[in-house]
């Protein structure tokens, strides 16, 4: 497994998609600080406020990272390297889990990059413009920011598991990207359109969709003109088991199918 990881890390270091996503998050963190500051000023209610603000932009991760996961899952089939890797004695299960774990590490890196840069840029902007920085609600902001960071990691793990499953099953990058789009925007639709449906079943589907949970912990879920956040143990448990179920289901399907299917490039 170590050899596989080293090789895949080497691949990522040379990968334009990986570099682009890293650049996108760096630029986005700077641009968002500037846009927010130009509208409402750079003053901060606490030193942890930028972390909480950054959480409200979580949706950005779900539009960009799953596409990278899709390309990363299919690149071996596109270029044929999966042939040489399996023929070198690595199992198909190791090949997939190696890629999945590495993608999660990349996700963690991107989250830390975005949150970290957003935080630094916000503080720097306040410092440069001489805007005041208060101490009100420091603990709450920090808790909300870190909770969103942790949950984003979990939900991105679920998204990556589902989309890498699609990539491994479909194998053709173009078709897999289309399927990934359907998954991402399908989730958005499930969350957005079905929440006001008259059918109880459809409302339940919307309530249990990944995107609804993401909106909730990001602090952007609005129902009947009311902002709804995660509150109470039940909400948090639901926010944990839904992505966990997606991860378990996606990984099980991928590993089972991958082991049975031949590799024909």
């Amino acid at each position, binding site marked *: 497994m170590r*050899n596989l990881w*080293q090789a895949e890390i*080497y691949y990522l270091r*040379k990968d334009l998609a990986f570099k682009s996503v890293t650049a996108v998050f760096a630029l986005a963190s700077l641009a968002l600080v500037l846009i927010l500051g130009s509208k409402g000023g750079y003053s901060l209610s606490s030193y942890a406020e930028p972390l909480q603000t950054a959480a409200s932009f979580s949706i950005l991760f779900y539009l960009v990272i799953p596409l990278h996961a899709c390309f990363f899952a299919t690149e071996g089939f596109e270029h*044929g390297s999966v042939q040489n890797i399996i023929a070198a004695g690595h199992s198909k299960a190791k090949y997939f889990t190696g890629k999945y774990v590495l993608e999660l590490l990349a996700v963690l890196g991107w989250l830390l990059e975005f949150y970290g840069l957003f935080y630094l840029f916000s503080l720097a902007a306040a410092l440069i413009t001489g805007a005041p920085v208060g101490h009100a609600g420091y603990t709450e902001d920090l808790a909300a920011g870190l909770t969103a960071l942790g949950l984003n990691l979990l939900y991105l793990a679920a998204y990556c598991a589902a989309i890498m499953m699609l990539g491994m099953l479909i194998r053709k990058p173009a078709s897999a990207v289309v399927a990934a789009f359907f998954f991402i925007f399908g989730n958005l639709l499930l969350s957005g359109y079905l929440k006001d449906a008259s059918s109880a079943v459809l409302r339940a589907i919307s309530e249990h969709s990944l995107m609804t949970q993401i909106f909730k912990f990001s602090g952007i879920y609005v129902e009947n003109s009311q902002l709804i956040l995660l509150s109470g143990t039940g909400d948090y448990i639901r926010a944990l088991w839904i992505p966990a179920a997606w991860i378990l289901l996606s990984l099980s399907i991928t590993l089972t199918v991958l082991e049975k299917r031949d590799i*024909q490039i």
Partner: protein
Amino acid sequence: MTATVFEAEGLSKEYPSGVALDQLCMSIEAGDVYGFVGENGAGKTTLMRIIGGLVHPTAGRMALFGEQSKERLASARRRIGFLIERPSLYPHMNAMENLGFYCRIFGIRDRGRGAEVLKLVGLDEAGPKKTGEYSLGMRQRLGIAVALLNRPEFLVLDEPVNGLDPAGIVEVRHILEHLSHEQGVTLLISSHILSELQLLAGKYGFIHQGRLIQEISAAELQQTAQVMICISTSSPAAAVAEMLRQELRRGDIRIKQTGEIELPRSGVDLERLMSLLVQREIPVDGFQLTAPNLEQYYMDLIGGGGR
């Protein structure tokens, strides 16, 4: 005693569209250079994929270096170098970077190994050019370099000279000869360029519609295939052939599609044949002996020889 590198017994692979391999039984001994001959879709690549663990056989068993269990087959595969169908290269990386990736896959720590194999395949001066800009021949050479990275004891090469220019074909042959003779590497090679395969292989397996229809050594090929005499003349070939049939009292003289007269070398007194042609004032434009030919042998075997 010679060790068996690869052994298959009743190996079959069935797809919904048809049978790719049908009860294949074969073995390759250490040091063999095994030429695998067959038409497109005959099952050559399927067998190579099975050896590489890419395709699951539907029936039969296989052993690599005597190992049969799933785990041990995986470790046996680390002793094999593969080039199956097309080289698996990253177009956004140069040759050294591609080899760097595969060095990590194989767990090769020797930093000079990449440069070593590049030199071996004649790509040491490829420099920073991305492989996406490579010609087919250059890609093929780099594919061979990847297969050689882990110093394999057994090389499985599917059409290794595909896309190479004549000089490249000769170079690759020399590389493979060197690996076989100097380093004792066992080779399984498929190629449609049978004349090239004949120069390299010591044993041939003929596969047709998924079945291994014949195995033959190079020595046996020499014995079975006849040396033929080919005469080209500006006189009417039919009349000359008829004259030779009567004078030499042989019924096995035929006219090829090219208009040349062909007869087996065995039992023919060359001096008498030449004097016959001179006496009858038959102009001889060409006179040659053809060596035993793998191509002809194969065509005869699958029934397309036209002889």
